[in-house]
């Protein structure tokens, strides 16, 4: 009798556990083959970040159109040259970065890319790390692609705990 009662309780628990399981199992992650544009423009974005990190101003300058503008929430557009000055400043240091969720759309005369950037940085010794949602518009200048417009918004005040390192896949 006691055994039967225990069994009944156990069956009840078992049934209730399995009843809570999702009816539709989650799809397994898919491992994708990046498009040519994703490969090409994620390389360009990484080159830009490396130029910022190493403070190679000429390299960075060569990647921006003359009238490049950086758009941020609640602010006037920041001219490209002002942005370059700010990241080249001695008291700014970009320590590490990673890009993810990269997509690229070819609009004929321009390529629009979107990605999320996680970075670890300091400004005047203060932690400036964070996560950003970025939309970049690249235009062709002769044989070179140059950044014409950037729309960027901070999505998290500090970089997430996941290790920050280039994955090599962007």
């Amino acid at each position, binding site marked *: 009798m006691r*055994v*039967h009662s*225990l*069994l009944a309780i*156990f*069956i009840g628990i*078992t049934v209730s*556990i*399995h009843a809570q*399981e999702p009816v539709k*199992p989650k*799809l*397994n*992650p*898919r*491992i*994708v*083959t*990046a*498009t*040519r*544009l*994703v*490969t090409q423009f*994620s390389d360009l974005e990484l080159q830009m970040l490396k130029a910022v990190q190493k403070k190679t101003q000429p390299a960075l300058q060569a990647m921006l159109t003359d009238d490049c503008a950086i758009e941020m929430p609640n602010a006037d557009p920041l001219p490209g040259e002002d942005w370059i000055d700010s990241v080249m400043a001695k008291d700014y240091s970009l320590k590490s970065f990673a*890009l*993810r*969720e*990269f*997509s*690229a*759309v*070819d609009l004929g005369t321009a390529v629009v890319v979107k*990605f*999320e950037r996680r970075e670890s940085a300091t400004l005047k010794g203060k932690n400036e790390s964070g996560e950003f949602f970025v939309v970049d518009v690249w235009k062709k200048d002769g044989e070179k692609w140059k950044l014409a417009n950037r729309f960027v918004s901070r999505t998290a005040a500090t970089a997430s705990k996941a290790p920050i*390192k*280039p*994955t*090599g*896949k*962007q």
Partner: protein
Amino acid sequence: MQSPLGKMKYALAFLFVLLAANFLMAQTVREGAGVNRAPDGAGHGTHEVAPSNNAQAGPIGFTVNTGNGINYNGGPVMKGTVNAYIIWYGNWNGTGSNTAATRSAIETFLGTIGGSALELVNTTYGDNTGNVSGAVHFGGSTIVSATQNLTDARVQTQVNNAITSGRLPRDTNGVYFVLSSSNINETSGFCTRYCGWHTRATLGGSDIKYSFVGNVDRCPSGCEIQTTGPNSAAVGQGGIDGMANTMSHELEEAISDPDLNAWFDSSGQENGDKCNFNFGATSTCNANGLCTASGTSAAAKYNQTFGGHNYMLQQNWRNSGGGACAQHL
């Protein structure tokens, strides 16, 4: 009449069966939990691996070669002859490269890639019971006429439907390709993030490996290699060659990392990813007369020849001699 002890025995036996069933169900739910490839965003999967004992111990069998820029993570590879199946989704009796001629060309491609110089690069991968053989057999195809765009879930449904309806066999040593015509989108990022992908699922209790590849003529700048390829039926139709390229990428990866827990590097890249759109030395059509008239007139490039055709296929990561992108061993 049973003694109380007898009743107790029955109850304990029943309890044991329940526990076992419970354990098995938990296993099913948890399967694949050891490897969690969170989409990292570049549209690529990022491996977050709970290393298996095998992975920590390093090479165990002689079939597992390491130290070549790609790591073994303990899971199986596909051995023996791998069967490739196709589900033609959308409108493959249409215009452009969405034609019966493309279907035939792609099926010929899958039917002859086995044993090719490129496929033999994959034999440098193995697990603790054996190596990839390099043998591939085209196992058949089915056509699904449809206008609805695909999602990741719908791709899986197409594979499941093809198997459960008996249109394609249930084959755990198979790779099922869902190939969509260029009027069809795969809404999780075809053309903007990726040209194709592969994964696995337990369907009807079987470990089924499958892949999505879209007709690259939907987004020439994103996924085509060249506007006119060595197998183009007309100038400006790069679909056959672009799809063949993505399919070879997914095939090598599905074979060397079928359950997403075998071969990939520290940043989550599988062998195909490490050489994405990297073709190595190429030749120009008309060299041996195996290109189509359009391919020849457009001086299309190719880097592989098998089954009486020239192909432009990305290189595969060779897991030997320190590792490199390679067209052949």
